[in-house]
């Protein structure tokens, strides 16, 4: 009974946290863009505009829903959920902290500890692309179709480099379990960003491509494709796409924190209190989330051929090289 209750509370807190962070990210995006462009940004709804995401959500719910002529009814309705669902499923295996004891109950700060946590995130997270492809196809619009096509080509090209970058980390740690990967980086000097700097860089770049963010947001690409895959979407279906995109960003940031920045480890404070560890985890994740926004409002979008060239001619060879060096060093040192 107690275990079920504890588990239920963890699920509620972690999913609530994910959705809350995703909603706040929409506000942060506008606030940071305003700051970068010397504007004020949303500041009318609530103190400092903090209630803006809520107002946006309510507005989306009351918008008219449009089903375009000639659209595939089933897939058109189903596609947004297909994007949002995998992003929310992946957060289940992220370890937010070590063991903690509260009210006499000892538990770990994650919903599930899988032996194959990394594979689970890659497998389930990769399914989010179906929502974009199928949504683009089902809309019966050439702009949407082109957006979906680009998304699929981009996804296949960059997922390979991402997996190879992660494989190098796995080789160093010797485990597919995210909790073990984080525990192996308990000391500040053991963080994978120092041991695998190239893999870290590759992961961060592919992270942008996998979540369809600037400068790789070719699925959307508003100057050429109107709105890309979501051109025909309105109301809360459009909202679901956004929720999915921002949730995927949050999960990717959490994954990057776990893989490269030592998860919940606090620099120079061994055996830190679990609250401090959780705060450290959130601060590191926030850095990656800020990077997402910072890059979006700094770099221009690539051209599509540049995107493919970068994926196949730069990222993939670098990832292979990194894996080769890692493997060679590991076998030479006999680790």
């Amino acid at each position, binding site marked *: 009974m107690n275990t079920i209750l504890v588990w239920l509370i963890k699920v509620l807190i972690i999913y609530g946290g994910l959705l809350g962070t995703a909603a706040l990210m929409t506000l942060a995006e506008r606030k940071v863009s305003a700051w970068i462009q010397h504007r004020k940004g949303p500041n009318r709804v609530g103190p400092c505009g903090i209630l803006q995401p809520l107002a946006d959500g309510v507005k989306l719910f009351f918008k008219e829903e449009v089903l375009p002529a000639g659209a595939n009814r089933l897939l058109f309705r189903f596609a947004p959920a297909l994007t949002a669902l995998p992003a929310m499923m992946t957060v289940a295996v992220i370890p937010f902290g070590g063991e903690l004891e509260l009210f006499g109950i000892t538990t770990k700060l994650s919903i599930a500890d*899988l*032996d*194959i946590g990394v*594979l*689970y995130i*890659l*497998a*389930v997270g*990769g*399914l989010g*692309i*179906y929502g974009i*492809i*199928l949504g683009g*196809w089902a809309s019966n619009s050439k702009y949407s*179709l082109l957006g*979906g*096509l680009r998304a*699929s*080509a981009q*996804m*296949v090209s960059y*997922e*390979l480099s991402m997996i190879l970058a992660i494989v190098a980390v796995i080789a160093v740690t010797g485990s*597919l379990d995210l909790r073990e990967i984080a525990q192996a980086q308990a000391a500040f000097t053991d963080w994978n960003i120092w041991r695998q700097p190239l893999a870290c860089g590759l992961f961060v770049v592919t992270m942008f491509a996998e979540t369809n963010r600037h400068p790789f947001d070719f699925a959307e690409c508003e100057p050429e494709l109107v709105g890309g895959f979501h051109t025909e979407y309105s109301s809360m279906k459009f909202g679901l796409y956004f929720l999915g995109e921002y949730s995927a960003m949050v999960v990717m940031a959490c994954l990057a924190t776990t893989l490269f920045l030592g998860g919940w480890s606090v620099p120079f404070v061994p055996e830190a209190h679990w609250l401090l560890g959780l705060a450290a985890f959130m601060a590191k994740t926030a850095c990656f989330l800020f990077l997402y926004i910072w890059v979006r409002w700094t770099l221009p979008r690539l051209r599509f051929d540049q995107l493919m060239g970068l994926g196949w001619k730069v990222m993939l060879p670098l990832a292979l090289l990194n894996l080769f060096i890692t493997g060679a060093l590991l076998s030479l040192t006999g680790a």
Partner: protein
Amino acid sequence: MVNILFYICAVAAIASALGVVSARSPINSVLSLLGTFFSLAVIYLLAGFQFMAAIQILVYGGAIMVLFLFVIMLLNLGNPEQVAQADPLFKPGRATGVALAVSGAALLLGLLAAHALPADHLSPVPAGSGRAMIETLADAIFGKYVLPFEVASVMLLAAAVGVLVLAKRERPGLLDTEAEDNR
């Protein structure tokens, strides 16, 4: 509980596999194939092969099917029925194809039956590390079940050759469009 889940997934896998070959629109075929892969992944999970399930979703669900969708959407094939009816070899070809497919399936099933699945094939794999599980898997595929495994790969190869034949356009037609482009 595990048994009920297994039968649900098995029926779903077979039903969506039938959907792959019977669906008119290629997109529906791809989605049915995706359904098959997911059902199989759940069956792997029920058998305790977490690794296999994750790889199944990652490789087939995440990469290969996305590529399929990409190609289908890019080619945007016309109505397959019309293309098929115009071909004089369509009807005899279909009959031969069905006969070959049925005999291939019979061969595969016969081989599997000859190897007699153990009675406890639904029980979880003996506990062990991920490495032990993968070794068990490799032993099963390349040791005991190597013959059914190879037959399945030959059938896949036959399907690939079939796709090549179907997708190959007539030379004159190709030249015509080229001439039109040059005009």
